[in-house]
């Protein structure tokens, strides 16, 4: 295995702890004590995954994640947050910034490695190729490309997988738990409420008016349904 993981953690001991355990599992690790050179280094050679501490001197982890999601080359790279903040609200805002997983301190190093593997596995498995067009929205699963009104729209891998799942099952109602099982699989951190965050983000990208969606609809008391336009 030859994948490099960029770890941004300002506490030297924790950084060492992460390096030791992640390297023991066969990945390469580059440590950063702040976000200072992170993006320029990553642009040169995109890593397989970012592991970001949220509380950092200078730009914090959330800010770094926002920048990663804005970069065309780094946008598809998964991000896992490390944080001492435990509340549901903190987790949700982590997801809203485009994170793929959220690990709370104090963590078990084994757990961190397991989560890294899970996220990478999720991203490795290619989607079944196919192009689905609904009105002015085109989903190209093979190229993992979303085109809305003839413009290519950036999505994170998780967003794309969720959208792909909806598009492949038009008209069916999914509960949040079903979506978690289907798209996130073995990630333990995401709660049913996190699904709402992703749905909102997808709506912002494909809907003309995200407040009154016509494609990705809420089914009151049940979950969500994707409706192909007639």
């Amino acid at each position, binding site marked *: 295995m030859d994948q490099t993981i960029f770890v941004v953690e300002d506490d030297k001991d924790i950084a060492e702890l992460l390096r030791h355990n992640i390297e023991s599992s066969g990945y390469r690790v580059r440590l950063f004590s702040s976000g200072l050179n992170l993006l320029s280094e990553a642009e040169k050679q995109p890593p397989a995954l970012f592991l970001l501490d949220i509380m950092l001197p200078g730009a914090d982890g959330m800010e770094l994640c926002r920048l990663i999601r804005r970069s065309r080359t780094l946008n598809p790279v998964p991000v896992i947050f490390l944080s001492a903040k435990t509340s549901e609200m903190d987790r949700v805002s982590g997801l809203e910034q485009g994170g793929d997983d959220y690990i709370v301190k104090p963590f078990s190093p*084994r757990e961190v490695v397991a989560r890294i593997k899970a996220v990478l596995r999720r991203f490795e498995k290619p989607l079944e190729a196919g192009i689905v067009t609904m009105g002015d929205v085109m989903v190209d699963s093979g190229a993992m490309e979303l085109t809305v009104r003839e413009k290519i729209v950036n999505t994170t891998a998780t967003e794309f997988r969720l959208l792909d799942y909806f598009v492949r099952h038009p008209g069916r109602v999914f509960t949040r738990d079903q979506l978690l099982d289907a798209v996130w699989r073995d990630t333990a951190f995401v709660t049913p409420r996190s699904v709402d965050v992703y749905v909102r983000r997808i709506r912002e990208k494909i809907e003309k008016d995200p407040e009154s969606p016509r494609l990705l609809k809420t089914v009151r008391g049940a979950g969500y349904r994707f409706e192909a336009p007639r």
Partner: protein
Amino acid sequence: MRGRIFFKLLLAFGIVLLSATLVLDLSIRHFWRESLTGEIERSLTVSSRQLAAVFDASSARQPQDAVALAGLTKQHSAIAGARVTVIDRSGKVLADSESDPVTMGNHAGRPEFVAALAGGTGRAKRRSETIGTEFLYVAVPISTGAVRLAYPLRQIESAEKELRKQLVLASSFAFLISILLAAIMARLMSQRLQILVAFADRIAAGDYSAKVADRSNDELTHVALQLQATADRLQQSFSEMEGVEKIRRDFIANVSHELRTPLTSIRGFAETLLDETSLTAEQRSFLEVITKHTARMSRLTDDLLALARVESGEENFVRENITAGDILADAQGALAALAAANSQTIVVEEIAPRAVRADPDAIHRVFTNLIENAVRNSKPDSFIRIGAREVEDGIQFYVRDAGTGIAPEHLSRVFERFYRVDPSRSADSGGTGLGLAIVKHIVLAHGGTIHVTSELGQGSTFFFVVPVAGQI
């Protein structure tokens, strides 16, 4: 309120007007009558003296016959505007301007006549026997007897009636004005009062930032000023208190966050070492002690933070309608393994059919803490019974164990933070001492109540009530 003020003002105005009218009626009428009577009397006196002089002069020239006397009397009556009577010394009427002297009685006894015969001016006020109305009489002496002028007071009475009519008219007009005035004043007053009442209502509801202003300069303004000052002081002391409370909570939250970084290293490195294969059994057990206590400390930081959030109301509870059955099944499912590890079994005894309005995660936490407690305090091979039943103010849930029980003196304090029933046992129990405090605050935040009953050696039961859906 406006109506009541209006009628009170109107009543007061009415009473004032009525008494003023009565006093005016009595005093003015009396005064007016007196002065009018005096005036008439004076003019009668003058006229009668002139008349006396005329009679005396003519009777000195030639003796008067009855016809000439009657003519003279009639003539002078018209001039003086009064009834004229000529009486001789014996009291016999010689002539009268309005009646035939033959029909008239002897006037010797009339007081004015007696006084005139004595040489002075006689005055009297009396009902005339001849005509039947009240007259004012003035008599003066002449050579043959006396001449008397009489003026009917009926004219004064009719003037008086006219005066009273005017007075009543004026009073009615004043009363109309006072209705208008009362309405205006009541309106102004009630508007100001309503502002004050609205302000007081907001203060009573706990909104100390309310403002009230009254631009007048009377007692109401004073009340408004004082109320405002009180509200400001309350607001200030509350914000001071909240400031202190916020510092305390922020401190707890910060401590909890700060502890996580060193805890991460301790736990992480200890676990990493445990992965080594070359450890002796003793080294391994030492490392396990470290990991066990790190886990405990990490739970403590979690609970501290959770308690601070629940206590402060910062925790956003997302309330849903959820059935008692779902809550119980969820609790049983999630904690069965923990109980089984201690050879205990969780039994759902009874299920109330209705739904409650609650945050499912928070209620799950309540059950987790209560059942963990029960597991810790019970012997292996015992049952932990949970259930829900309908009570008056909602659904009552309970967790019953058959454990050691709590002595009565501790019962009221078990929900306090870090309160230990048995300090010697607690270190190993795995509890943080915050579980029940968190439980209590979650239940209170849901508008519920909580209590515990217990008997030493028999076990304890924790009861909490959550309002049913649609109740809040």
